[in-house]
Structure formats: structure tokens, C-alpha cells
């Protein structure tokens, strides 16, 4: 495929996405470069150039990334169409099909991370004491 053909395909897919999306979602794509889709399980941020962000419904915190591909080569906007339609109509199928990379550490609050760090420091200290006692 030549560069021209590639650009034509990309533009065609972009116009198809425009036809499918509600006006508000299209404006969001034009202005912010992403579309946000609300599901029953999570909120999703679909981008043409990166993996889809899965965000907590209430806090909006990033909990995972999702990666979904079409089985045939197609412009990135076509992949966005597939993701949009699946999330909107069959969210559970989306979760079963896409590769989901959880970001569990992001879900831990700073207080929990602090406690983990303190616990680790205490453990190292205890280990040091035991070894020191053993040697002497």
C-alpha cells in the first residue's frame, strides 16, 4: 500500500467513525484526540495511537490498559470503531477478548504504599539483626 492509499484508507475510516459516533464524542475526538465511552463496569478512553485506558467508574482512576486488534489489517480508526461498538453493546465480550493489563499498584493509596515500605524496612532490619546475631 502506497502512502497515498494509506492516507485515503485512514481518512475513509475516520469518516466512518464520524458517522457512527454521537456528535459529542466526535467533538471530543477532534478536540482531545480521544473518545470516552461509559460502560457498566468501567469508563474507557479510546485513543487512535495508544492502548485503551480503563478507568474506575466512580473515582476515574486508571485501573488497566486494554489492547484489542482486528484480525485483518485496517486503519486505526476502524479498530476504534470495533472497540466503541463492543464496549457499548457487549462490554463483557470486550473484557473477554481484549488483552487487559491491570494497573493494580495504581489502585493502592499512598497510605498503603507507605505501610508496605515501612514493613519492608522493618523486615530488612530484622534480617540484619538476625544475621548480625548469628555471626557474633
Amino acid at each position: 500500500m502506497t502512502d497515498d492509499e494509506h492516507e485515503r484508507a485512514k481518512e475513509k475510516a475516520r469518516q466512518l467513525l464520524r458517522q457512527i459516533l454521537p456528535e459529542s464524542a466526535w467533538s471530543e475526538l477532534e478536540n482531545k484526540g480521544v473518545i470516552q465511552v461509559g460502560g457498566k463496569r468501567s469508563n474507557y478512553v479510546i485513543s487512535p495511537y495508544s492502548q485503551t485506558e480503563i478507568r474506575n467508574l466512580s473515582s476515574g482512576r486508571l485501573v488497566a490498559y486494554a489492547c484489542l486488534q482486528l484480525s485483518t489489517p485496517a486503519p486505526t480508526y476502524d479498530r476504534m470503531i470495533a472497540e466503541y461498538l463492543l464496549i457499548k453493546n457487549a462490554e463483557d465480550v470486550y473484557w473477554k477478548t481484549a488483552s487487559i493489563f491491570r494497573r493494580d499498584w495504581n489502585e493502592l493509596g499512598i497510605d498503603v504504599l507507605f505501610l508496605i515500605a515501612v514493613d519492608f524496612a522493618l523486615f530488612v532490619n530484622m534480617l540484619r539483626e538476625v544475621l548480625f546475631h548469628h555471626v557474633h
Partner: protein
Amino acid sequence: MIGKLRMICTSGDKLLAEWDTETVSPERLKEIEQEFNEKIAQGWFAADISEKKSVLIREFDPNAEILLIPRVQGG
């Protein structure tokens, strides 16, 4: 009203069939429905994209603008 059957492909999308819902012959509709069913059997999924409906469908709807989407997989 115009019905359409489109499919996503390397070049964006391709129009497989277009018909006037008032005048299309039953034979022609049967052919289009068969094409639709073959894709669904191959694992493609379909959506009615007329008037921004954007709903997934399993059965051929002669009054819809249908988009066929290839199988999807985790990346």
C-alpha cells in the same frame, strides 16, 4: 430508504451491496443476506449503523445500513 452492507477492510471500508428497500427483489435480498450470514459464520460481527444506532446485530436486517467488522483479538 436505502439499505447498505459495508465491511471494514485494509482500505478503510468497502461497500458490498446497496439496495432500495422499496424496490429490491427478494432474490437480490437473499443473496445479500447470504453474504451477511457467511461473514457472521466466519466470526465477523455486525452492527446497524443507520442514524447512529450503533447496535450489534446477529440477523440480517434489510432496512438497515450494516457494517461488518472482522474478528477481534487481544493484542
